[in-house]
């Protein structure tokens, strides 16, 4: 029998005249872990949809287990053992883990009635497949993200999966959870199940894959064993340009300068305690730590979203109080939130309106009416400065790609002329090209004298862009490094906790 489980041959697909895939080829062997790599818009998702039978290819052929399909329907794909684990897991939050596991199975079997003993039995079998235990009688909405993912994976296995496609599976996971996901993948592989791991996170790709396929603009640009690739090569193929990963060089302005932002003994019950640090003009300070280390809570406190209960904040040496967001804005603090979709943008509103949302008060004429010229001037300026790619600022923000959306969030805060800019996970879900651009924007801002604070667990991002790095653990700052003093490996190890042996419970990671 052939070694190849799935062969995608010369598949093309276009939507409304736009060519999404051009003669794309992909071969997945049995029991192989294959990474499908590409930036947003490279055709990754279209390819997955074609393999799943959700979209029909315009031309080309799909061969599964030796059987050729011109047109593949979802039910064929499932029957041939292809299962997709979507980014959002496609689970029912209101149902128990057990029912989530059994539901699709019973549906496939065309069951009409539900026998709850069978449900339990099916669920237990499913969990046994990957050797993990979760409380099956808890509602999925009560489970931590990692457990939800395990439920999704074991549900996929119930359908005799031969190929599991994981779409950006590590987006919401902590490093520790990524580790256990990789263990599960290795276990699947030993049982002869192939895994197609779709990602744009370079470290993960290099760690888990055996072979790599890179798409760019809907075409194959590289294909081969992992050993043939390194970070720079991956980046080159994904973006089609050489991107230098340089480090930020901070040049102290005057030696006796007062810090732009000084935080002294800041605490908030249950979130963080006794946090003290300074940010000088031109500095980019990184605050990192695991999910649940208190980093996000600290950022929110500085912006007044969840104000600190104790401690002092000084801006340019002046003692200030931040009790709410209005205080923070008034004092010149800007905040780029972690989740731009729910916290940072008004998605259906126009790009322009989003940009001026935080400065509306300044655009007012007499009688409180917005001055359209002033507004348009603002919008034009920032679209140009931040190189936002759009045919018109009147289009809804929703129409933009992740990278461009994030620029709009930045623009929204830059219009307020902040002195201190707090960026919480500034490039989550942004592809590499845009990521580099955003990093350049932040660096330029710092060089102009802003104090930037990047809160992130993206280690390369922190190391390349921050001249100082503060490590948080359990709500406290435990160590400080200078940016050129530490390597990625070291920081990763310290983040997980000293020598990596310190246990981090999952409950803690998700408060």
């Amino acid at each position, binding site marked *: 029998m052939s070694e190849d489980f799935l062969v995608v041959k010369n598949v093309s697909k276009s939507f409304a005249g736009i060519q999404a895939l051009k003669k794309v080829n992909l071969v997945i062997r049995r029991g192989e872990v294959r990474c499908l790599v590409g930036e947003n818009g490279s055709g990754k998702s279209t390819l997955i949809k074609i393999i799943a039978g959700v979209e029909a290819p315009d031309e080309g052929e799909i061969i599964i287990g030796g059987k050729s399909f011109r047109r593949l329907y979802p039910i064929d794909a499932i029957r041939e053992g292809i299962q997709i684990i979507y980014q959002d897991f*496609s689970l029912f939050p*209101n149902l128990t883990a057990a029912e989530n596991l059994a539901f699709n199975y019973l549906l496939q079997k065309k069951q009409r*009635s*539900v026998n709850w003993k069978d449900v339990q039995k099916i669920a237990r079998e499913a969990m046994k497949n990957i050797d993990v235990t979760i409380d099956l009688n808890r509602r999925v909405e009560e489970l931590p993200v990692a457990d939800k993912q395990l439920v999704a994976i074991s549900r996929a296995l119930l359908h005799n999966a031969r190929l599991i496609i994981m779409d950006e599976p590590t987006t919401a996971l902590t490093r520790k959870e990524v580790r256990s996901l990789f263990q599960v993948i290795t276990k699947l592989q030993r049982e002869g199940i192939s895994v197609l791991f779709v990602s744009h996170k370079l470290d993960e790709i290099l760690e888990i894959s055996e072979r790599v396929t890179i798409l760019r603009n809907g075409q194959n640009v590289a294909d081969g064993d992992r050993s043939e690739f390194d970070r720079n090569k991956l980046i080159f193929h994904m973006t089609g340009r050489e991107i230098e990963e340089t480090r930020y060089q901070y040049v102290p302005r005057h030696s006796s300068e007062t810090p732009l932002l000084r935080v002294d003994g800041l605490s908030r019950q249950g979130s963080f305690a006794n946090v003290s640090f300074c940010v000088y003009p031109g500095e980019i300070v990184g605050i990192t730590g695991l999910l649940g280390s208190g980093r996000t809570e600290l950022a929110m406190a500085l912006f007044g979203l969840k104000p600190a209960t104790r401690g002092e904040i000084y801006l340019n040496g002046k003692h200030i109080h931040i009790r709410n967001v209005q205080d923070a804005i008034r004092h010149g603090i800007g905040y780029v939130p972690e989740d731009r979709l729910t916290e940072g943008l008004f998605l259906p509103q126009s790009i322009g309106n989003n940009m001026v949302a935080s400065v509306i008060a300044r655009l007012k004429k007499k009688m409180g009416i917005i001055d359209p010229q002033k507004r348009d001037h603002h919008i034009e300026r920032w679209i140009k400065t931040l190189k936002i790619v759009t045919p018109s600022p009147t289009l809804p923000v929703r129409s933009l790609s992740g990278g461009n959306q994030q620029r709009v969030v930045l623009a929204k805060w830059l219009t307020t002329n902040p002195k201190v800019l707090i960026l919480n996970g500034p490039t989550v879900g942004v592809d590499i090209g845009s990521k580099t651009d955003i990093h350049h924007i932040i660096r330029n801002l710092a060089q102009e004298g802003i104090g930037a604070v990047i809160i992130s667990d993206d280690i390369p991002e922190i190391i390349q862009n921050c001249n100082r790095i503060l490590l948080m653990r359990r709500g406290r700052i435990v160590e400080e490094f200078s940016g050129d003093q530490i390597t990625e490996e070291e920081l990763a190890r310290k983040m997980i906790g000293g020598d990596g042996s310190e246990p981090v419970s999952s409950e803690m990671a998700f408060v």
Partner: protein
Amino acid sequence: MNGIFSRNEAFVALIILGLVLIIGSINPNFFTLGTLYDLLRSSVVMGIFGVGVLMVLVSGGTDISFTAIAAFCTYVTSRYLNSIGFEGSVLVAFLISGAIGVLLGLINAILISSFKLPTLIVTLGTGNMFRGFMLAFIGTKIVTVLPPGMIRFSRTEFFPVTTLIGGTNGLSAAVFVLLAVVPVTWYILNYTMLGRGIYAIGGDRVAAERAGLNINVIQFFIYCYVGFLAGIAGIVHSSLVRTANPFDLVGTELSVIAAVVLGGARITGGHGTILGAILGVFLVIIINNSLIMMGVPSYWQSAVIGMIIILGTSITALQSKRESRVSIVDNQ
């Protein structure tokens, strides 16, 4: 799920218990079989409505047309049966009224599933439409002499007891309609893939689609079933009040939704149980019927119900908030 006593249901049950004890200590006459019969009889119409509302809420929708459907069905049925001089069983009235309800529910379902319109808007529109249509084309005159079958039904009582003033009081036959509707709907919701599908689309519609559920079929079922229940409830209501009044019922839909939400169903879909819905209805009925027995002016009824809704939902919200507030700070 599986009859687990979730917090909201326990809360409502406790309030009912407390209320019953308070009312009973003030007015010992409360603890009689007769009172229980009264309360049960008063709960039937709202109970049947509540079961339907629960199903819609669980699926993530909102139906506010069911009272208009009920009024339409019972009025048309009563007038029709009177016009042909039908003297047979009330079952025929239930059948006709239920069938009209299914048809009206079908209109809701078609609008909701074919045009993908929000359920609240659709039923807001159709509710007004059904009512206006009935008043304009069928009539506005109150039917005071019901078909004989319905009158006989309203007089049928079981297990009679002697009341304090010497008359007899029995368990109304109408109660058995509720006693049939509840287990049937409970079975559908908990033991059929259709019912679990209703929970599934209420939980995550996209995931339900990907799992291969036919959402249209499920929505057709829901709105037709709710229409059917409304038709049944309409006949019960007319029989109990001995008139078919086209101006009746409409306006009570929000109290029914309130009662069901009180029992733990969420407006956002995916959550709620039959037990909770029925408990919620009982609580509202007890408040409506018994505050007077305690000497509380009747104006206070809706204020008290409102307060309990806010109290009930905020207690559960507070509890879940407290649970999630685990300290991450390491206080060495």
